[in-house]
C-alpha cells in the first residue's frame, strides 16, 4: 500500500487530547491528527480517519452528522473501493477534533472543510459522502469544489424542510433552549438517544464507541451548538446559507446515490422525497427496516457505495462485452429490439370504441368495450386536468373491477405510472411499500381512502365513487372519478407516453422479506402482453375468466373480454367450481387464468356443479395456472373439471412473467426429476444459469459466468424484452439482480435438461450448504411427498453455511385440517416417530439429519401455495437446538 501524498500524521501526544482507543471495527492506523486553517485562517487540529491509499481513481470525503463522529464510516474505510482514498474527518468541536471557543455556523464549517481538504492534499476527483448534518456540509463542500466533484452520496439527511414542514419533531424538541442545553450538553441524553434509535439495537461496544468522544459536558458543547445552528425559520444566521445551498443542489449534475433507513424518526421518508426531487437522476436504495444510523443498521451500505463509485471511475462495459470469457460471450449478445411499430397498451380500446360487446363482467355487471373506451378517454383527460402529470405515481387501492381497469388504462393514457400492491401484505406492509414508492396520488374506495390516511400516504386523493362532503373533508378527497370524467369529457386528450415511459411499479408478494417494488416501462409491459398472447395463441374469441383476479387488468391490452368471479381477491382459495362456472358463463369464456390455491378448492367442490354450469366449463379450451408450480396430482384432478381444456402452467415471477410454459402432457412426459419441470423457455426468452458456488463454501463469492449446458445447477437468469426495467429505490438489489448485464438473476435455482427443459429446484436462499454437497429442496420434497401418509413436506438446512445438515419437515395426512391462512403461527414441530422417519430417510435420496412432524407449513400470502422455507428453517433450527436454543 502506498501512502497518500500528504504530510506525515501528527501523533497524538498522550494526555493532550483523548484519542480513539481500541474500539470495535476501527483500525488505529487510520487515525491521524491534521492541522489545517479554518474559515478565519486560524490553525485548527482535526482528527481524521484516512485509509492512506494512493487515490488512483479518487477520494471519498465522508462527513458524519450530529452527534456522531468519523467512527460512523469505519465500514467504508474497511471495504474501501480499490483505487480510492477514504477520508473521514471529525468536525471541529466534534469527535476527537479541536474544540473551538465559539459555535461555528454552516458557512464557516463549509469553509473549514475546504481548508482541511487542502491540508490533506485532496486533489483530483472527489465523491462526497454525508450523513445527517454531514449531508448538508458535504453538499456545501461539493458546491464549492465543482471542478473536483465526481459524485455525491447521501444517507438520511436533509437540505431543506419539505413545504409545510416545521422540521423533524425530535430535532425541534432538542432545539428548545432548555432542552438543548440539558439534553445535548449537560447530559449525554442526545448522544445516547441517537444510537438507541437503531433496530435491532446496536451492540453495547458500538454504542459506547459512538459516545466515546462525548464523555463530558465540555466535550459535548458542539453537539448542542450544531443543533442550535439548524435554521428552522428566516432570520436565523444560517437560514440564507441553507436556503442557497438547498437550491444549489438542484444544479448538481454529477451522479448521485441516496441510501436511506426509512424507519428514521428524524429524517423520515418525506426528506428522501425532497432530495429525490432536487436530484431526480439520483439512484436510491432504501434499506428496509433500517433507522437513522443507517450505516450501523445496514452495514451493507458500504458495499453498495464501493460498487457505485467503482462504476463511476470505470463506466460499465456494454452488455455482451465479457472479457476473457468465451462461453459467456456467446450467451451475452445484446438483445435485438423488435422492429414493428409500437402498439400502446390501450390501442384495442381505441379500435373498439364503438363495440357494444363485453370487455368485462364483474359480479354479474357487464361493461362494454365502447363504455370502457369512453370512460378511459374521459378519465385520462380528467386526470391530466386534475393534476396528474406524466411520470406521476398513482397508487391504486381498488379491488379488481371495471373501475380499476378504467383507472389503470386512464393513468397509462395520461402518461402516469400505476403503483400496485397486494392487500395480502397487510396494512404495515402496504404502508412500507407505498411510502417507499413515493406516490403522488392515491385512487381508492372509501375503505382504501381511510387506509391511505391511516398509512399516512403522501399525495392527492381520488375517490372511486362520489363521497359525501363530510367524508370528503375527513378523508382529504380532492377528486372523484365521475367528476374527473366530466372534466375530461370533450377536453383534448393528454399527450400519450412513449414506449420508454415508466408504466407500472408492481410490488412482490413479500414471501421472502419486505415486498420489493418492480418498475416497468411501457415497452416491457407491451412485450409481456404480446408474449402471453403468442404463447397461448389467444385469438379474438378467447374471452377469459380471471380467477387470479389481477389478470383481469390485462384484458383490454390483450384485446379480450374477461370475467372476474365473485370472490374475495385476497382469498383465492374461496373460489368454488360453481363460482368459476358462473364467471365463465358471463362472458362465454374459452380460457381460465387461475392460481394453484384457487384450483384446489375448485376440484374439491366440483361435485356441486349444476348441468348448465358443467356446460359452461366444457367450453373452456385452455386453463393457465400461474403463481406457483401446480402439482401433477392437482392438474390431473383439474382435468376432470375442465375436460376439454389443455392445462398449462407458466413459470415466472413479478420481475419477468412468463419465462417458460409447460402443459400437463409435457409434465407427464418429463416424469420425475431433480425439481419441478417448468418447460422450455418461450420464444424470445433466453434462460441461462449461474452455477452455484462449490459445496462447503461459506458464501456465494462474486459473479460466475453464465452457462446454458444441461445438468448444471445454478441461479436461473433470464433475458427477454419483458423483463422488469429495475427495482424501485433498491439500488443494491438492482445491482445484484442485474449483475450480468442484460440479464435478470431470478433468485430461483434450477437446471436445464438434455431436452432443453428447465427444472426449478428452489430459491437460492433455500439451497442447503452442507459440508460435502449443495442440496436443493424441491426434488427431495417431491420424493418425500410420495410417501404414503405424507400430505406435504419442506426440506431445509440448519446450522452454519458450509456445514449445514438436511432437515425434512412433514405434514402427515392425519394432521389437523388447514386452519386460517396466514404467515407465522406455530407449526408445532416434534420428532417424527420411528417408522415415518425411516420411510422418509429411505425416499429422500440424501442424508437427512432429522425428520420432524408439523401440523402445518407456513405459506406465502399472495398464492397461499409457496412454502416459506426460510420460516420453516428458522423454526426447525430452534426446535433442533433443544433447551436454550
Amino acid at each position, binding site marked *: 500500500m502506498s501512502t497518500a501524498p500528504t504530510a506525515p500524521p501528527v501523533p497524538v501526544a498522550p494526555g493532550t487530547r483523548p484519542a480513539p482507543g481500541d474500539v470495535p471495527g476501527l483500525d488505529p492506523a487510520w487515525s491521524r491528527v491534521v492541522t489545517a486553517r479554518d474559515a478565519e485562517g486560524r490553525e485548527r487540529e482535526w482528527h481524521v480517519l484516512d485509509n492512506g491509499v494512493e487515490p488512483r481513481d479518487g477520494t471519498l470525503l465522508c462527513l458524519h452528522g450530529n452527534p456522531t463522529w468519523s467512527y460512523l464510516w469505519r465500514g467504508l474505510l474497511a471495504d474501501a473501493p480499490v483505487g480510492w482514498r477514504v477520508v473521514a474527518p471529525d468536525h471541529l468541536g466534534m469527535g476527537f477534533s479541536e474544540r473551538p471557543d465559539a459555535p461555528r455556523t454552516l458557512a464557516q464549517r463549509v469553509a473549514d472543510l475546504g481548508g482541511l481538504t487542502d491540508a490533506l492534499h485532496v486533489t483530483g476527483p472527489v465523491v462526497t459522502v454525508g450523513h445527517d448534518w454531514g449531508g448538508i456540509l458535504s453538499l456545501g463542500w461539493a458546491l464549492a469544489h465543482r471542478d473536483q466533484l465526481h459524485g455525491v452520496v447521501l444517507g438520511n439527511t436533509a437540505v431543506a424542510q419539505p413545504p409545510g414542514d416545521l422540521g423533524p419533531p425530535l430535532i425541534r424538541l432538542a432545539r428548545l433552549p432548555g432542552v438543548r442545553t440539558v439534553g445535548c450538553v449537560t447530559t449525554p441524553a442526545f448522544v445516547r438517544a441517537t444510537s438507541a434509535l437503531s433496530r435491532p439495537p446496536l451492540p453495547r461496544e458500538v454504542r459506547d464507541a459512538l459516545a466515546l468522544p462525548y464523555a463530558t459536558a465540555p466535550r459535548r458543547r458542539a453537539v448542542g451548538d450544531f443543533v442550535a445552528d439548524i435554521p428552522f425559520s428566516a432570520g436565523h444566521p444560517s437560514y440564507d446559507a441553507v436556503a442557497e445551498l438547498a437550491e444549489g443542489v438542484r444544479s448538481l449534475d454529477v451522479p448521485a446515490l441516496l441510501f436511506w433507513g426509512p424507519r428514521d424518526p428524524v429524517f423520515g421518508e418525506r426528506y428522501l422525497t425532497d432530495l429525490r426531487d432536487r436530484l431526480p437522476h439520483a439512484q436510491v436504495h432504501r434499506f428496509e427496516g433500517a433507522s437513522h444510523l443507517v450505516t450501523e443498521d445496514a452495514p451493507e451500505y458500504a458495499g453498495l457505495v464501493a460498487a457505485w463509485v467503482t462504476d463511476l471511475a470505470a463506466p460499465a462495459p456494454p452488455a455482451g462485452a465479457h472479457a476473457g470469457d468465451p462461453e459467456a460471450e456467446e450467451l451475452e449478445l445484446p438483445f435485438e429490439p423488435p422492429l414493428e411499430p409500437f402498439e400502446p397498451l390501450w390501442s384495442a380500446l381505441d379500435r373498439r370504441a364503438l363495440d357494444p360487446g363485453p370487455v368485462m363482467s364483474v359480479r354479474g355487471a357487464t361493461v362494454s368495450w365502447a363504455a370502457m373506451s369512453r370512460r378511459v378517454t374521459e378519465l385520462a383527460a380528467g386526470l391530466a386536468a386534475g393534476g396528474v402529470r406524466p411520470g406521476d405515481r398513482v397508487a391504486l387501492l381498488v379491488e379488481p373491477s371495471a373501475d380499476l381497469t378504467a383507472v389503470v388504462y386512464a393513468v397509462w393514457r395520461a402518461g402516469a405510472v400505476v403503483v400496485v400492491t397486494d392487500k395480502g401484505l397487510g396494512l404495515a406492509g402496504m404502508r412500507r411499500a407505498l411510502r417507499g414508492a413515493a406516490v403522488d396520488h392515491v385512487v381508492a374506495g372509501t375503505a382504501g381512502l381511510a387506509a391511505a390516511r391511516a398509512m399516512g400516504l403522501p399525495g392527492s386523493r381520488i375517490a372511486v365513487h362520489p363521497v359525501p362532503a363530510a367524508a370528503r373533508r375527513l378523508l382529504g378527497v380532492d377528486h372523484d372519478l365521475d367528476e374527473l370524467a366530466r372534466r375530461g369529457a370533450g377536453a383534448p386528450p393528454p399527450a400519450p407516453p412513449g414506449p420508454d415511459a415508466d408504466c407500472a411499479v408492481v410490488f412482490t408478494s413479500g414471501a421472502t422479506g419486505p415486498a420489493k417494488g418492480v418498475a416497468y416501462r411501457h415497452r416491457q409491459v407491451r412485450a409481456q402482453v404480446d408474449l402471453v398472447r403468442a404463447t397461448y395463441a389467444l385469438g379474438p374469441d378467447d374471452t377469459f375468466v380471471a380467477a387470479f383476479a389481477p389478470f383481469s387488468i390485462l384484458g383490454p391490452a390483450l384485446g379480450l373480454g374477461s370475467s372476474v368471479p365473485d370472490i374475495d381477491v385476497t382469498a383465492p382459495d374461496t373460489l368454488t367450481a360453481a363460482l368459476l362456472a358462473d364467471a365463465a358463463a358471463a362472458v362465454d369464456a374459452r380460457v381460465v387464468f387461475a392460481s394453484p390455491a384457487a384450483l384446489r378448492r375448485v376440484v374439491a367442490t366440483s361435485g356441486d356443479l349444476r348441468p348448465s354450469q358443467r356446460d359452461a366449463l366444457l367450453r373452456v379450451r385452455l386453463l393457465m395456472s400461474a403463481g406457483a408450480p401446480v402439482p401433477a396430482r392437482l392438474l390431473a384432478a383439474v382435468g376432470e373439471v375442465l375436460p376439454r381444456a389443455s392445462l398449462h402452467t407458466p413459470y415466472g415471477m413479478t420481475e419477468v412473467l412468463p419465462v417458460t410454459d409447460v402443459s400437463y402432457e409435457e409434465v407427464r412426459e418429463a416424469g420425475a426429476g431433480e425439481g419441478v419441470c417448468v418447460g422450455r423457455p418461450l420464444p424470445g426468452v433466453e434462460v441461462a444459469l449461474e452455477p452455484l458456488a462449490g459445496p*462447503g463454501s461459506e458464501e456465494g463469492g462474486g459473479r460466475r459466468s453464465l452457462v446454458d449446458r444441461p445438468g448444471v445447477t445454478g441461479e436461473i437468469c433470464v433475458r427477454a424484452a419483458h423483463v422488469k426495467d429495475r427495482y424501485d429505490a433498491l439500488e443494491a438489489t438492482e445491482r445484484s439482480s442485474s449483475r450480468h448485464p442484460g440479464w435478470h438473476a431470478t433468485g430461483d435455482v434450477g437446471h436445464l435438461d438434455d431436452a432443453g427443459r428447465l427444472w426449478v429446484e428452489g430459491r437460492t436462499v433455500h439451497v442447503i450448504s452442507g*459440508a460435502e454437497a449443495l442440496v436443493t429442496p424441491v426434488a427431495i420434497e417431491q420424493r418425500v411427498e410420495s410417501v404414503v401418509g405424507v400430505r406435504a413436506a419442506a426440506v431445509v438446512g*440448519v*446450522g*452454519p453455511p*458450509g*456445514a*449445514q*445438515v438436511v432437515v425434512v419437515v412433514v405434514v402427515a395426512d392425519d394432521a389437523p385440517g388447514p386452519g386460517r391462512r396466514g404467515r407465522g403461527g406455530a407449526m408445532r*414441530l*416434534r*420428532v417424527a416417530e*420411528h417408522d415415518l*422417519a425411516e420411510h422418509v430417510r429411505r425416499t429422500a435420496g440424501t*442424508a437427512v*439429519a*432429522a425428520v*420432524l412432524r408439523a401440523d402445518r407449513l407456513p405459506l406465502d400470502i399472495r398464492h397461499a401455495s409457496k412454502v416459506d422455507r426460510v420460516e420453516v428453517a428458522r423454526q426447525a*433450527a430452534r*426446535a*433442533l*437446538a*433443544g*433447551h*436454550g*436454543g
Partner: protein
Amino acid sequence: MRVLVTGASGLLGRTTAGLLLRRGDDVTVLQRRGAGLSCAEVLGSVTDEDAVARAVRGQDAVLHLAAKVDVVGRPEEYEHTNVRGTATLVSAARDAGVSRFVQVSSPSVAHAGRPLCGAGAEPADPGRARGHYARTKAAAELIALGADSPGFPVLAVRPHLVWGPGDTQLVARLVARARAGRLPVLGSGAALIDTTYVDDAAAALVAAVDACGPSAHGEPLVVSGGDPRPVAEVFNRLCRAARVPPPRRHVPVPLALAAGSAVDLLWAASRRTGTPPITRFLAEQLTTAHWFDQRRTRSVLRWSPAVGLEDGFERLAAWYAAGCPPR
C-alpha cells in the same frame, strides 16, 4: 512407529491400541489395571512419575486417553488424574524426546451449556466448562497444547459421545435404564446430537497420531460422526439394537434440570459414590444440541468415519443378539 497409549483399559483406548497393533505399530500401554492386550504394558497411574518415565522411554508418539471420566465424585480426584496426570505425562514425554503427542480431550471442555449447532472447536475454557470432568479436562488440554513446540508437536482431539459394542458408559447405562422402564425422553427429544461410533473414533485417533507434526499441531479438533440426529431418535435406535423397549415417557426440560440440580446437591451432601439417575450436567447434555462442523477435522486428519450411524446400529444389534461377547 513406537506408540504409547495411556488408558487402554477403556473401550476407546483398547480399540485404538488394537488398531495400532493390527497395522504393525510397536505399542506400549499404560494404565492401572491390565488391558488384556498382547503388547508391552506398564501398570500404573499417569500421576506416578516413575511409571510414566518408564512408559515414555524410547517412544515416538504418545496417545493420552487416561482420565477420570464420571459425573460424580470429589473434585480433587479429577484434578489429580486429569490435570496432574497430563502435566506429568507431557513433561516426561518431552524430556524423553517423544516426537508427537496426541491429547484425547472432550468437546465438553469448551461447552458452557448453550446449544452447539455445527460448531467448530472453540478453545478450552476451564472457567466455564460444566462439571469436574469437563473443567479438569479443559485444564489438561490447555497444559498439553501449551507444550506444543517445533520439536514437540501436540494435537488435541475431542471425540464426541463415543459408543458401540462393549461401551459401559453411554450404551450400557441407557439400555439398563430402558430395560427397567426408567428411561424418559428429556424435553421434546429434538435436540440434535452428534455421536461417534467407537471404531470411527479409534481410527480418528490413529489418524491424529499419524498427522501430528509440523502441519498439524497446537490446535484442538472435535471428532464426530458428522451425522447428527435428534436425541430421541438416537435413544430409540440404541434401544432397538439392544432389543429393549424405547422410551415413551417425556419429562419436561425444567423438571429434568431441577431434578439434576437437586441430585447434584444430594450426592454432594451425602458423599454418595454410586451413579446417580441424573445430574444437571447430564440433563443439559441430553437436552441441548451438540453437533459439529467436521470440515477442519477431516482435512487436518485426512480421516472420515468408515462405519457411521447406520452400520454402527447394526453392529450393536448383532453384538446384543450374540449375547454381548467381550470385545
